[in-house]
């Protein structure tokens, strides 16, 4: 049975680059939630940034 994903031309879709990034990340074994955030979330502090 043909996979659903193979029926779509991903380059026609909104955010296909972000989707591809996420797919690649998952294939690399990254944690999906973290990678989605890292790829597309621009998480900036107004002055101090990420504090450790």
């Amino acid at each position: 049975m043909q996979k659903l994903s193979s029926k779509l031309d991903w380059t026609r879709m909104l955010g296909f680059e972000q989707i591809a990034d996420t797919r690649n990340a998952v294939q690399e074994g990254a944690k999906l939630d973290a990678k989605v955030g890292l790829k597309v979330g621009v998480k900036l502090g107004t002055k101090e940034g990420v504090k450790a």
Partner: protein
Amino acid sequence: MRERLAATLDYVFGEVGEELGVDRAEADRVVSEIRAAPQSPNRFGAYYEMVLAVESDELDEARALASELMASADASGLRVAAIEDRAPGQAERYRRLLISEPGMAAQPDATLLADTEERIDAAFALLDQGFPQMSAEIRELLREIVIAAGPEDPKAITFDGASSYMLWGATLLNARGQTNVLDTAQALAHESGHNLLFGFCTSGSLVENADEEVFSSPLRKDPRPMDGVFHATYVVARMHQTLTRLLASGAVDPADRERALADLAAHQRNFAAGDAVIRENGRLTPLGAEVIETARAYMASAA
């Protein structure tokens, strides 16, 4: 962004709507609805999660998300609400898509929430008075300001604000991230700037650098991809412009003036640092070059 979402859903439901359990007439209704009016960030988030489920061939999950996409949601006006103050499942989605460590965005208690809402109202009032064009633009760009409480532990990793391409129109503010109205006004200019840049990117990127290439960023201690450096540099100029206009208008409380001037100087330095990284290492698309030139022109005029 809305037009692209509408066209994409039209295409996706045309190709695989039946498998997703979406009736063609219902799909047409939703596509028309998206074209006609601003949409909730949640609808963008549901779209991305649906296509990611399709990508992974998780059909049941994709069907559930397609069904969620069919449900209408009021997105008129700008909604300010706590992270948990939304339909079941949405808070988890917002955390998932906005921040890399979902646990760091907790529901604020009633007092913290009320204080933050009051500060956001005051920040808009300040912008209305001193830089009404920015206030109007923020209201146009953002559909939701989501309030969460970051960790209290001073050693914990935290955030001040967050925005995501996948939740277009939403911005997350840490109720513990800003403590005064001027900072909140700057945070709104900052985070809405990310949403503006996301809106520019509906058909491509601002930069061509690979995400694996990382550089020093003016607003983060950790090295960032060029896209992050670009965003940071652009929003720094936007914060500089906001503060400059507020100061020139006389809207800034005299007691805050010294701090505002210190922030302005920091923005000047941070822009110069970020722009130097972009000039040296950035491979910008024509769109990216055009966008950063507007920021450079502003900063040069303000010097």
